[in-house]
């Protein structure tokens, strides 16, 4: 039920997320785009779970848990970087550049 539309929405969300990661410079926006990509995948899992069994839905919980942990760590890093450099623009965070 609604498999096709669900997957289409998921694909659109994922593409938007990817484009955001590649094109935006603000670390927080990039972070949100990564979350968007994760949720696009979650949507796919749920859509397929109706047909292939409940394990897809279980997996979504795992992804949510990991995403929450990642959000905590990621935001903490961003705050630490901001305190240090007074910016979250990735253009200026290039200490590792050779």
């Amino acid at each position, binding site marked *: 039920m609604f498999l096709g539309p669900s997957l289409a929405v998921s694909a659109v969300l994922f593409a938007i997320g990817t484009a955001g*990661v*590649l094109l935006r410079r603000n670390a927080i926006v990039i972070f949100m785009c990564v979350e968007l990509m994760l949720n696009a995948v979650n949507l796919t899992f749920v859509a397929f779970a109706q047909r292939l069994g409940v394990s897809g839905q279980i997996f979504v919980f795992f992804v949510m848990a990991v995403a929450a942990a990642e959000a905590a760590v990621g935001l903490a890093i961003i705050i630490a970087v901001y305190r240090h450099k007074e910016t979250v623009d990735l253009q200026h965070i290039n200490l590792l550049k050779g």
Partner: protein
Amino acid sequence: MTGSPLALVWLVPALPLLGFVLNGALALGGIRVKRLVSVIGVGSLLASFAVAVVVVRALAQAHAEAPVVFHYWDWIPVGTLQVGYALQVDPLSAVMMLIVTGVGALIHIFSVGYMHEDAGYARYFAYLNLFVFFMLTLVLGANFPVTFVGWEGVGLCSYLLIGFWFSEKVNADAGKKAFIMNRIGDFGFLVAMFLIWQHTGSLDYTTVFAKAPTALVAGGGVVTAITLFLFLGCTGKSAQIPLYTWLPDAMAGPTPVSALIHAATMVTAGVFLVARSNVLFALAPTAQAVVAGVGALTALFAATIALKQWDIKRVLAYSTISQLGYMFLGVGTGAMAAGIFHLATHAFFKALLFLGSGSVIHAMHHAYHATRSHEDAQDMRNMGGLRRTLPWTAALMWIATLAIAGIPPFSGFFSKDEILGAAFARGTVQPGWYLFWGFGLVAALLTAFYMTRLMLYTFHGPNRTGPQEEVHLHEAPWVMTGPLVVLGALSLAGGLLNLPELVGGHAWLERWLEPVTGAGAALSAAPVLSHTTEWMLIAIAVAIGLAGIIGAVRLLDLTALVPARSAAAETGLGRVLWKKWYVDELYDAVIVRPVAWLSRVVLWRVVDVGVVDGAGVNGAAGLSRILGWLASRLQTGELGFYAIVFVVGVVAVLVKALR
């Protein structure tokens, strides 16, 4: 067979090897105990000779038709190529073994006196023992590779001993020349071995010679190529045209070395190899003609050069080349026994001549040393009248001279006559051999002439050494004259080895060698001469020999000769002969210089500097630097760029996977 004394054969080469190890250790350790060195050096040879006698006696009693092969270990087991380290006792190797150890022992004894004051005494005996070991490996080897090891080993020892006094560049150069010339010949030997293995599937003498008549087409291209390549090896080792020029230069080594290596044993290895491979040569008439022709031509050519040399050892060196030519004429004609017979008698009388000349040089050197003169101790123009001070040497060298000149009943007469007779007999079937016989005959005339010249200039007429020096001339000690006496007896009586049936003998050596030469002889039967013809040939040979001696006595004016320092330069043909037909100069212009030019200009400046260094080494470095720079452009340090590359990669993988 293990209980038989034949099994002792491994001791024959092992004892000189032990001598080499011990003397080599003494030389390296810098331990200067001459008495110990002499005992080891001479003792190992005498013991080896004794064992050889025991082995040969056992062989004579065994009456073995087939060679007795002792396989010691697998040496090269590669696929179908199975080469073992194996020694073979048969009549041919027995004769060679006795010559090498017997004459070798005498020359070792002589060396004790000759080299007594040399600083490199232990090194000298170590090399000499090593040489004997390799020479015995050569003659006793049961397959081509083992013989080849000996072949290379004697070449190495020859190099080491020619350049024994290496502190003088001339001597070191002579050693290098000998080594390089021999390499050219060794290449031929190697190619011949490859061909033999390709066409018979084996390298063992017994197998190859048994298979050869069926596996190889008689007179065909393959067997002709094999034998000609083998003969190329022989021309290098045995100093035949075109690779003979190293031997006269090899006289730079100590005189006993010239006697042992460059007269009696090593240079006869080529004759031995042809006799050993007589089955192959019998299958290739073209190669036989080449061997006999080259031999006859060399005999004549070298004899002409010997006519005008002043250095006593150089005369003997060219004489050796000439006599080796006779041996090749013999074995090329198919008269293997005659060739080996001449090899044996030549070993006796030429070793005697060289050791005699060593005794003369020893005396001359002492005389000049006593007065601190820098005259040439080897130039015959500085000698003369030495028979008064060196009576033993003079008398014994006259025996050898009569032997080499082919005067009956000395040993050289029988062996040389047999070779010339065989060549003449072959001429009745193939007229080309009449020419070779003619060459041999003229060479015999020249031989008698130049040897008499050498004797007259050295031992007769007035003395030209110098008034102060003359009183210092003296006969060598017994340790040097003793071996000369033994060799003199052998030169005198050596003919008994193979007394022809014509004069009531039993052709003992020929019968003894029958098991070896029989297979080849069966493939090409030798024509038989009538007794009248044989007597006529003998008469001609003796007349020629006498004519040479009498001619030399009549033509040479001993009183007109002046010492080397005040002698005028030669002119005309004499100069050409003195300059050795300018062959060294010709080789220098045609081969050495072009090769040197090619090496310097093309190979060094273009190939090495340009191609190898430029394009190869530096080119590879430059290429990797460029590639590295290109790859480093990808590492921008921009996170966004990496992410794009990553996504593009993922998309590419997905596209590829889903299609």
